């Protein structure tokens, strides 16, 4: 059974590229959300195995979304992503409940699989 993924990003072009990329690598993209509130609602509804979560969202940032998902008892794996590098966010990635971080330019099924294993 393929890993189900929820893609959270405010840029449709990225959501489309990520969907194609992950589906090509054998993931099942079950939903998309364009902001933090939408991400929390979709996660509750779709119960994905993995949330690919952009850090910079229009309402609340990805770190906050990750905290709220965990606080709500959501057990999905969370992978943070951004056009910026991990070091741009200091310790915030390490301090968050996310499994890891991948820059958007390096996103692939393999990179995600390495983070969540």
């Amino acid at each position, binding site marked *: 059974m393929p890993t189900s993924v929820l893609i959270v990003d405010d*840029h449709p*072009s*990225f959501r*489309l*590229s*990520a969907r*194609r*990329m992950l589906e*090509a690598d054998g993931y099942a993209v079950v939903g998309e959300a364009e902001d933090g509130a939408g991400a929390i609602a979709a996660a509750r509804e779709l119960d994905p195995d993995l949330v690919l979560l952009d850090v*910079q969202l229009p309402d609340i940032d990805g770190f906050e979304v990750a905290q709220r998902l965990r606080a709500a008892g959501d057990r999905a794996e969370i992978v943070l992503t951004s*056009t910026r590098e991990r070091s741009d966010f200091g310790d915030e990635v390490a301090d968050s409940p996310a499994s890891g971080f991948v820059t*958007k*330019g390096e*996103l*692939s099924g393999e990179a995600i699989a390495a983070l969540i294993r």
Partner: protein
Amino acid sequence: MTDLRRALLGLGAAALAIGGASVALILTSNHTSARGLAATLIPIAGWGFVGTGLYAWYRRPGNRTGPLLTAVGFTWFFQALESADNPAIFTIGALGLTVPFAILIHLLIAFPSGRLEGASERLLVAVAYFVTIPMQVAWALFADPAREGCDGCPGNPIQIHGHEGVAEAISSAQGLIAIPLVASAIVVVFRRWRGSPASERRVLTPVLATGAVAFGFLLVQLVLGQAGAGDGPQRVAFIAAVAAFACLPFALLIGLLRSRIGRDEEIRTALTAENEQLTAELRAKVEELRASRARIVEAGYAERRRVERDLHDGAQQRLVALTMSLRLARGKLESDPDAAAELLDEAMVEVGEATRELRELARGIHPAVLSDRGLDAALGGLAERAPLPVEIVETPEGRLPAPVESASYFVVAEALTNVARYAEAKEATVRIERRNGAVEIEVRDDGVGGADPATGTGLRGLSDRVAALDGELTVESPAGGGTTITARIPCA
């Protein structure tokens, strides 16, 4: 020593000599009664007038008060000549006796400016001189001192005999004219005093009060003379008038001193007020500059945040998508060449979009066409990209200094952005002219108006940008009447 000072000192010395001679004449007179009083009052008043006159003349050479006072002083000594036992000198005294009173009327009416204001004042003074000079000469031609009640007086060598009664008639006419004249002078002086502000009254009061008292006594003497009163009361009134006149120069000196003190106070008050106003203006200017500088700094931060956001949301996302498309295409190159070709086509579209967005961004930071080809070409581009017809009516020939050129461009760009967003206009015109050492930029539209620079950050940012070059931005935007944005930037 200046010529004026030398001349004034000469006049002072002459007055001293004449005063001394006058005292000698009075004290040696055979016919003058109350010689001691006359020998005291006449030189004190004469010297007083000459002294204060010379001082006033020296301090304010342009004011006629000084010369008039000096003239009163010198003519005052004619009274002493009447004490002479020599007929010629005695007659000269009689001829000039009344002149100082006319000059005094002139002086008081013209005080403190020294100038006569209006026809009525000039008429009064002209009548005063007429009564005291030609009429006095006419009187002297017929006067017989013995008939005037002065038995010890010398004879009148210029007397025309055989016309008894003429001198009395002339003297009576002089009195009849002098009474309303002196009364009018007192009224003029009182009105002058009443109409003056408090600060001026400090100067006028001592002079005008003393003058009014002196002329009041003179008036009493004249009225008594006309009423046929005895010599005694007339004499008392005349001596009182002369005593008051003797005080006049000193009252004038007090007035002059007060005027200086008052003027110093006025200057100090005015300077303090001006200083306070300048300080307040400077403080407001500093505050305005501080606020404007803070806004410019904030605008700089905001601009950088916008550039970062534009890069992040635009070109960066495009490049990310492009990378992913290319990677996917490579993966499908052998297994599914059609899908790979489709992904490559999409990638090319992404590259095109990314390039366009980067170009827009760069233009927003600084349009290259402006640096390369000048304002005319850059404005042409702005007009072309605007979503409504924009006519560039006029642009300056040749290049402007770079900061002025850049500010002019952004004024037009921001104004046209506002027109497109809010004005609901059918068209807009742009006019940039060099005029009177400045560049004037005008953007006019035919839209709904009602633009308020206080509420829009765009217009305020422009205003700051223009102010940074010592320029000024004005917005005229009546509701329903379109909007005209005008910037004026100094440009030598």
